[in-house]
Structure formats: structure tokens, C-alpha cells
């Protein structure tokens, strides 16, 4: 770059800078006039502002000045402050997580069955009271449950049946947990009557409403019922005791 051009650029720059105070003074003038127009404007009447971007008392702007933030600096160490911040963030995040978890848990617990419902949902049966070849009807969740202590002959009869040809084919071992104990819901699968025990053409149950016959395994053999008698959930927690439900 030649010398004359350098001189012109510096001159131009100078001129540009010189123009600023002129602008500034005119702006101040406008402000002054505004102030005179509205003497009751309390917000601007006594405001004084010294910009931190000025060096000394001169009024011209100097963008290279970095204001002194010393007044705002923390006196303790950086790590300690950082740790305190992260600790607060973390602990409040943890509290929020706890709250969220408990909210979700409350909703889920609310949906599950309450203790009184659960207590009524199970029935204990003392099996030693039921002699061989006898039926017992138990009320469970508002429905009758048939418990039959089957004899060896009946077990053999139920197992030897050609179950594949039945309307609702099911082998006997799928319907009992212990072959001597047959446990079924006493609700006819046709329209929900209660079948009569030790009756019907097949030595099992007979529904008087529409004449469905069930065999000694509770499988439908004759009549309008579409399915075998339903098997509820049951278990033998110890000898001579059965829990339905």
C-alpha cells in the first residue's frame, strides 16, 4: 500500500470518529428538549448514567476498555462455587426424580386391587373334610366352585376317554393338577346356569336349564354348551389344604 493511500484512510477514519460527538450532542439536545416538554416525568428527570465503557472522565466512547467486574467477583475458589452449583442442581434434580417416581407409583398402586378385595379373592378348602366320591360346592368371587374328590374308577374313566373327538377337546391331565381333585367353576358355559352334580348321561354334571351334559372331567358331551367347564386358579400349598384364587 502506498503512503498517500494510507494517509487518506487514516484521515477518513479520523473524520468518521469526529462525526460521532456531533451526532451525540444533537441527540442530547433532543433529549433536553423532551425533558423540558414534560417536567413531571420522574423516571428520567434525575437519572445519571456513567457508562463503564469510558476511560477516565472523557465523554467519548472507547470500546477497548474492559469494565472492572471486581466488585462482582466471588471471593471463594472456583471449584468450590462450581461444586456448590452442581450440588444444588443435582439435589433438586434428585428431589424432582423422587416426586415423579412417587407420583407414578401412586397411580399404579391406585390401580391395583386393595387389601380387602385381595382377601376376598382367595378361598381355603380343607380337603380332609371331603370324602372320596363326593362333591362340594364352594362360593368363590360370587360364583360356585365344584370340588370333586374322584375315585380311582372315575379317574380312569376320565383319562381313558377319547378326548380328541369331543366338542372342546382337552385331555384330563390338562384339567386337573392332582387327578383325585377336580376343581371347576360351577357355571354352565352355555348361559351360565349352575349344573347339578352326579347327574346326566355321563356320570358328571347336568345343566337343568338347557340340558347340557358334562362328564366326570367337566367336559361337555351333549347339549348346547360350547365349552368345557372352566378351571379356576388353584393350588395345594400343603397336604390336605387347597387355596382357590
Amino acid at each position, binding site marked *: 500500500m502506498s503512503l498517500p493511500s494510507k494517509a487518506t484512510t487514516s484521515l477518513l477514519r479520523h473524520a468518521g470518529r469526529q462525526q460521532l460527538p456531533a451526532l451525540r450532542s444533537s441527540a442530547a439536545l433532543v433529549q433536553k428538549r423532551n425533558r423540558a416538554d414534560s417536567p413531571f416525568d420522574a423516571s428520567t428527570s434525575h437519572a445519571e448514567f456513567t457508562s463503564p465503557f469510558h476511560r477516565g472522565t472523557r465523554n467519548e466512547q472507547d470500546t477497548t476498555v474492559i469494565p472492572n467486574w471486581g466488585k462482582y467477583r466471588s471471593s471463594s475458589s472456583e471449584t468450590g462455587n462450581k461444586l456448590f452449583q452442581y450440588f444444588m442442581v443435582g439435589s433438586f434434580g434428585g428431589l424432582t426424580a*423422587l416426586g415423579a417416581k412417587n407420583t407414578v407409583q401412586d397411580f399404579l398402586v391406585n390401580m391395583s386391587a386393595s387389601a380387602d378385595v385381595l382377601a376376598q379373592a382367595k378361598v381355603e378348602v380343607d380337603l380332609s373334610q371331603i370324602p372320596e366320591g363326593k362333591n362340594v360346592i364352594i362360593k368363590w368371587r360370587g360364583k360356585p366352585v365344584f370340588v370333586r374328590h374322584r375315585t380311582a374308577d372315575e379317574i380312569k374313566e376320565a383319562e381313558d376317554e377319547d378326548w380328541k373327538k369331543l366338542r372342546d377337546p382337552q385331555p384330563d391331565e390338562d384339567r386337573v393338577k392332582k387327578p383325585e381333585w377336580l376343581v371347576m367353576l360351577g357355571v354352565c358355559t352355555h348361559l351360565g346356569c349352575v349344573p347339578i352334580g352326579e347327574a346326566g348321561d355321563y356320570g358328571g354334571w347336568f345343566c337343568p336349564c338347557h340340558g347340557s351334559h358334562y362328564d366326570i372331567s367337566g367336559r361337555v358331551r351333549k347339549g348346547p354348551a360350547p365349552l368345557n367347564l372352566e378351571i379356576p386358579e388353584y393350588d395345594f400349598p400343603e397336604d390336605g389344604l387347597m387355596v382357590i384364587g
Partner: protein
Amino acid sequence: MSGLLNTIYTAFVRRNAVFLTTIFVGAFATEMVFDSGSNLIWDSINRGRQWKDIKHKYMSNGGGGDDEGDDDDDE
């Protein structure tokens, strides 16, 4: 002091995964401590009045569900 703080910082806060894990584990621990602590306070205030305190008077011989079979109440 600053060395200790630095150790804590690098151990727990530096990596975000570690930081989050610390938060969740801390929340879990806080819950357990809070729950068992409040249970302790409750039990100490109501000492002698709860079923578990007077159970031995009514359920003398262990096992044998004589009168009322199920006794799974309180808490």
C-alpha cells in the same frame, strides 16, 4: 480443602453419566432413609399401640390359625 473439592468434582460431576447416576442413587438412598426414619419416629410415638406390639397377647402358640386365620394387617 481445594484439593478435596477438586477430587469430589472430578469423581462425581465431571462426567455427566456419573453425575446422573449419583443423582439417581442419591434419590434412592434419600427415599430409603426418609421412609425408614419416618417409620421409626411413628413407631416410637405409637409404641405399645400397634398390632405388632400386642400380637403376642392374642396369638399365643405360633402357627395354628385358630380364630382369625389371616393376620396380615398394619403397614
